[in-house]
């Protein structure tokens, strides 16, 4: 039924495989007596569902790549932060530690310490 070489060219192309298999099943079903419009409706739902799933998978890959970018940006900002104060005020940056009082955690710890 399919032109020669079609299956060979579909190797690895899942979208094409899904399209051809679902169309073949639909037309095959109609040929053997399945009601035609419900068969087409099922095919459409299958294709839409597949498209949505693939889209979600592709978006996930993009988000993972975006996380890598955000991490790289954070690294850049960290390097700049270390040198910014030194260049601007000719003094090293304040220590940002748990007990230094310069972070939210540090401030909370300092308040707790004061109460005790």
């Amino acid at each position, binding site marked *: 039924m399919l032109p020669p070489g079609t299956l060979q060219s579909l190797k690895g192309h899942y*979208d094409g495989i899904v399209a051809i298999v679902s169309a073949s099943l639909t037309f095959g079903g109609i040929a053997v007596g399945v009601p035609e419009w419900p068969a087409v409706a099922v095919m459409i739902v299958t294709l839409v569902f597949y498209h949505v799933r693939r889209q979600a998978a592709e978006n996930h890959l*993009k988000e993972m790549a975006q996380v890598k970018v955000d991490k*790289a940006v954070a690294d850049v900002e960290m*390097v700049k932060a270390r040198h910014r104060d030194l260049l601007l005020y000719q003094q090293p940056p304040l220590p940002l530690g748990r007990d230094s009082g310069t972070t939210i955690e540090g401030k909370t710890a300092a308040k707790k310490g004061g109460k005790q």
Partner: protein
Amino acid sequence: MTFMEFVPTGLVAAICVGLFGYFRARARTESAVRNRQLEEAADLLEIHAQLLNRFLNDKAAPDTLKRVLIDCSDAMSDRDVVLRFTGWMSSRPMTSMRRDALLDDKELLNELSRLKISDPNLADDFSRAILTVAVGSLLRWPESAALFEQIGARMAANPKGDIGLAVTAASFRTESSFGLSGQNHAMA
């Protein structure tokens, strides 16, 4: 069922399969392109962080160039600045990057020339740090990545592309981290 009875259903099914193929191909291509852009942006920004660290930690690097590098990096991490910069740059003639007279700042150019003679590797780090942050930031956002072909050609065609790029990008930032302008460079 006769063939003529099957025609409407077959037509609808064929149109649906065609639309599915079209939308899938479009979504797949767009996703692959954007994915590749983000991967490359991440790699370039990682390299930028390493070069920035090396340059800023080096005692031989002049403070003026350190400030320019941080200013450029700050500017290129701001989405609005990058979009304005790319929009402006993509509409420029091929070899004209200068926005105004910032590059007439002789001290900056002299500092770089001196560094190129005294420590070519450090000067190379400076140039690479600017180019990596510029290209990485362009690829980071889809709107600027779409203009990458035009911008890349202009970056390659410009003489003194690195320092010109840094100063021009920084000038697009309304509030500079050091409040630098061309005149302030000379004062620093």
